């Protein structure tokens, strides 16, 4: 289970970051961001480790993790597809894109495909409302997306 192992190992940079922030008040959220940046999500093992390193109860960490939508507690797919659910995108047919993508991939919002290739995430306004409706895959933003384009866009990542 090499993957599991990788998920448990904090890189040197990550450890240095935590050491740097350790004494700063209000550091927890910044540390969690950094952990998620490294692994794409925050596993139970990571949370344990953060608890140890910051000398903080695990309950406090889970309290924060569960409060903030941005933090993921399950591993996202290799390609995380973000669909904008902001107002501008909604009015321009973002909900139809959700239907089509859940259809195409056979997963719900928040789900991961069985092969681990794709995950679907609904996000709030990504700030490109002029391009609504918008989806974003691994940082690449697609604007004025129509239902018909979706199979083509997805196949680029397959």
């Amino acid at each position, binding site marked *: 289970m090499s993957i599991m192992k990788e998920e448990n190992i904090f890189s040197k940079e990550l450890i240095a970051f935590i050491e740097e922030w350790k004494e700063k008040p*209000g550091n927890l959220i910044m540390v969690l961001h950094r952990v998620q940046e490294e692994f794409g999500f925050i596993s139970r093992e990571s949370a344990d480790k953060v608890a140890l390193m910051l000398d903080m109860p695990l309950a406090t960490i889970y309290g924060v993790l569960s409060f903030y939508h*941005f933090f993921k507690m399950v591993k996202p797919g290799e390609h995380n597809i973000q669909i904008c659910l902001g107002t501008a995108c909604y009015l321009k047919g973002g909900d139809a894109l959700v239907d089509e993508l859940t259809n195409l991939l056979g997963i719900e919002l928040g789900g991961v495909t069985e092969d681990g290739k794709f995950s679907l995430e609904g996000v709030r306004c990504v700030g490109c409302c002029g391009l609504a409706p918008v989806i974003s895959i691994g940082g690449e933003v697609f604007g004025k997306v129509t239902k018909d384009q979706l199979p083509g866009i997805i196949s680029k990542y397959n």
Partner: protein
Amino acid sequence: MAFRNYILVCGGTACESSKANAIYEALLAECKAQGVADEVQVLKTGCFGFCEQGPIVKILPEDSFYVQIKPEDAKELIAEHVVKGREVKRLLYTKDCGRKHARVEDIEFYQKQFRIVLRNCGFIDPENIEEYIAREGYVALEKVLFEMSSDDVIAELRTAGLRGRGGAGFPTWMKWNFTRQAESDQKFIVVNADEGDPGAYMDRSTLEGDPHSVLEAMIIAGKTVGSNQGYIYIRAEYPLAIKRLEIAMAQAREMGLLGKNILGSGFDFDIEIRLGAGAFVCGEETALLASIEGKRGMPVPRPPFPAVKGLWGKPTVINNVETWANIAMIIVKGGDWFSRIGTADSSGTKVFALTGKIRNSGLVEVPMGTTLREIIYDIGGGIADGKEFKAVQTGGPSGGVITKEYLDTPIDFGSLTKLGSMMGSGGMIIMDEDDCIVDVAKFYLNFSVDESCGKCSPCRIGGRSLANLLEKISKGNGELADLDQMIEIGEAMKKASLCALGQTAPNPILSSLHYFRDEYLAHIVDKKCPAGKCKSLISYNILPDKCIGCTACARKCPVAAISGERREVHVIDQAACIKCGVCFETCKFGAIEVR
């Protein structure tokens, strides 16, 4: 060194995602290849605001405005415009002016705008402090450090009449003054860059296009109220803005504008960035401060206000990004100058993110007192696709709808509140005849329910009940009594919720019920959705006299609900139909009707 041409490439998030970076690289490469690299400077700037036409490239000194540029166009732009001095006509924006030469001032989108907050967006390279300084940057800070007393600064803000742009419109000078007068060993300066309204991106563009305008104002506030530590709380979803802030902070430090002994004045001030993590309620100031402290972002009752008891219990000035971006200009040009812009109720300008069913979607800055009609029709170019205007929502999930009759209302804090909406942070969403008012209210309510922190029951339970009632109505199960019940719950939430999230969450319902009661009644009494949006209340039908039996719809229907032989009229089995609308979009003969 002077350059023959300056080429400005929009590097805002919207354009950046539509390949601005590739265009920038291509332009640089072409300049080299065609031997003009020494004569031309290519810059990546902040958002030009005209996102609908992006990516945009502007070439100075001719002020040529090129739109919808692709990386492949770089070669022609350099060869023709720069080398031969001929504009590339096919790429110019020509819509609003008869002339071929489209200058920025000819474009209607910009004509009624007046830029204070966005003064530098699209004109400077936000990653180069020298360019900010060249446009009067850090002049205000010098004045505050060496010429003005704290009293002077506060008096100037008071004369200016600047009110907070984060939504509530509280006078900025009063906040600063409370913090200044508070006795404490430590005080803090905080920038609210959480920008939670879904469908608004004013603050993002300001930070991406002109980060120093916010940094400079923070240092000014620090000096004025006696604080030497600032925090910028920004959404993690804004990576480009975060990057540009980091670069700006590093450059300011290097030039002695940030850190110890700023410009030799003996005043120390430093800034740290803190990331939000996707919770709308953290835009509320007390929740935001809790979040900076590393906790769950739950609001606490005010008073005490943060100005007196804020971050870690210390007096804290917290303002919205746009509020901050006004400060330096007020110091440079004077409060009197600022107070003459706008209306008596609200001075200065306001930035709006104009989106939805509008022809020119984008970021606009107008003097307060501009009418909705001017923004929507003169700047925004009216409704897209020749449809009918229905309503405009300001204030996002906390605001309400405004109808046709009120389009000539001059916008300011007071006038929008009077109409049952609010200024909010600047989201302006345009709806047309295809948008269902019940559906939109449901969208906003679901948003507020998702984002409620759950601390107080009026918001937690009331919001859920309202969302359920809307769901019931949109499913066709509504009863007349539901309307009164919604008003009752809404009014109770307004009075009893702890923070403004719960207090304003019913606004989208209350205002739409006020202006569009008929549409609610159509859902409840006639069991119809006039806009054809609520799936339970519509049916798709094939018009026998228009259907030519091409079989296109039948082949596309995901549940095989359509039957019929080739060249014969097709029929939809209503019991099987899932109302996905595919057949409607597929039919080329207009033979499918939504009822």
